[in-house]
């Protein structure tokens, strides 16, 4: 790996997780305040995360296994916030009923 590729790849990896975090945060705040615009902004963040994953796969000198792992992670990122949100709602709902 060249010196430039090292910094570029690391920056892309960091931005990838940052975009994933942006998606999770905006999705959650959007659901919390019932603001579809924020949920859409969250989706844009996920698209950015996926685009970054594709860029990592196509342009960086990482081994193929890592590229596949990153692409798979991008797909998993898509489902984590809605899945956890639904789970939390159910958990709290059950708690309310119990009380």
């Amino acid at each position: 790996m060249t010196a430039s590729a090292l910094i570029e790849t690391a920056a892309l990896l960091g931005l990838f997780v940052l975009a994933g975090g942006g998606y999770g945060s905006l999705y959650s705040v959007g659901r919390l305040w019932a603001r579809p615009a924020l949920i859409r902004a969250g989706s844009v963040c996920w698209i950015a995360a996926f685009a970054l994953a594709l860029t990592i796969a196509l342009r960086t000198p990482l081994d193929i296994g890592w590229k596949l792992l990153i692409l798979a992670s991008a797909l998993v990122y898509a489902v984590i916030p809605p899945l956890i949100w639904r789970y939390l709602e159910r958990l709290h709902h059950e708690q309310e009923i119990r009380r």
Partner: protein
Amino acid sequence: MYRSQKLSLRYYTAAVALFGVMIVFGLLSALYYLYPSLLFNVFNFNMSKILHIDTLVIWLLMGFLGAVYWYLPKELGREVEGMWLAELMFWVFCAAVVVVAAVFVFVQYGAANEFSMWFINQGRKYVEAPRWAAIGIVVVMLVFAYNVIATCIKARKMTGIMWVLVLDLIPLLAVYLDAFPAVTNMSVDLYWWWWLVHMWVESTWEVLIGCVMALVLMDVMGTSRRIVETWLYIEVMLVLGAGILGLGHHYFWIGTPQYWLSIGGFFSALEPLPLLGMVVHAIYDAGTHRMKTNNQPAFWWITAEAFGNFIGAGIWGFMMTLPQINLFSHGTQWTVSHGHFAFYGAYVCGVIAVLYVAKQQVSGADVLGGRAWKWGFGLLNFGMVGMVMGLLLAGMAQAFYGRAMGGSTLMAFTTASENPWFVSGMYARMLFGVVFAAGYVVLVYDLLTSPRRVPALQAQPEPA
């Protein structure tokens, strides 16, 4: 107030004092990078770094012990068993820390013999305390384990959180035995040494702070026991699944088999996923309570923990954890940047939240608010972000010029250390380190001053 909670306050006091010592030696260590001949042959960089890191470990450990002693009687509805022993151990612990620090400052090092190992320095990074003190830590932890387990038995009560805590005590103690060097082969020694460092920081401590945060969440935000226990079990599963084998991401340049690098990279790459879940959970909980709580400082420090953990461990970790990057970034200021952010996010924020929980109860205030805590919160977070950005810049310069371009030679290291990017990063770290220190002063001031009397909020937390 229970007797164990009084002991807990002593632990908190010692922890906060050592937090200050850690910052002093952190600033001094930062100065050496700007003035390399500073205190040459009087008090060298290595001793300052040892005191910075060792006090970090000890103050956090004291914070954890304090938090458990604080919540144990509340959780089990009775006084902690064997309190006299616990109180004795607190003083033994403090005395040992003072003696070891005095030896590090005034004696510093000795000849490479058994005497030095027993009475001056064990010679192992992060666990440098001489062997007598290391044995002392084992005794303190054994007594702590006895206090927890015996109280559970006497109370005839085991909650989910207590099960996790008790089971976590076994690896917590077992891996510390790794602090005692027994092999002379450097590769083998470092191989096992990482078990101690990694398993404490990225496994057993994670579970321990998870238990503490579960108790804090029930206390401060009124989150139900079922919810916090469910999350705690999920966390334990993830620690077992991803945290333990992430160990391999440390195995660079020490002669371990190459397959460890792939194993470490793979499991570390999975770590941001649960952290993302934590962020979603933090926002959900904050929203459910509409940001209303009777303990604002604790609430914000809990929230900072979720985000700090995601950014410090998730983003900063993922940037450099894959083997092809780690090969170059390993051991540079880049790693230091990640270490600072991850420790701060995962542990420091959590322990500060616990301090505010104790402050509220001790002061008898219905509501904890005011302005000073906001300044402390802002300065500490701003200072930390600035420091890690400076360190990241410096570390990337080292990886770029010293490792990837220069081929990791001594000359390349020197050249990279004189590079303007590296130097500016080090100046930034120093500057923001001062900001962080100012935040610490405000934090201590706020913890020590009595809160203003304000009527409690209408919306009380849900009963646990």
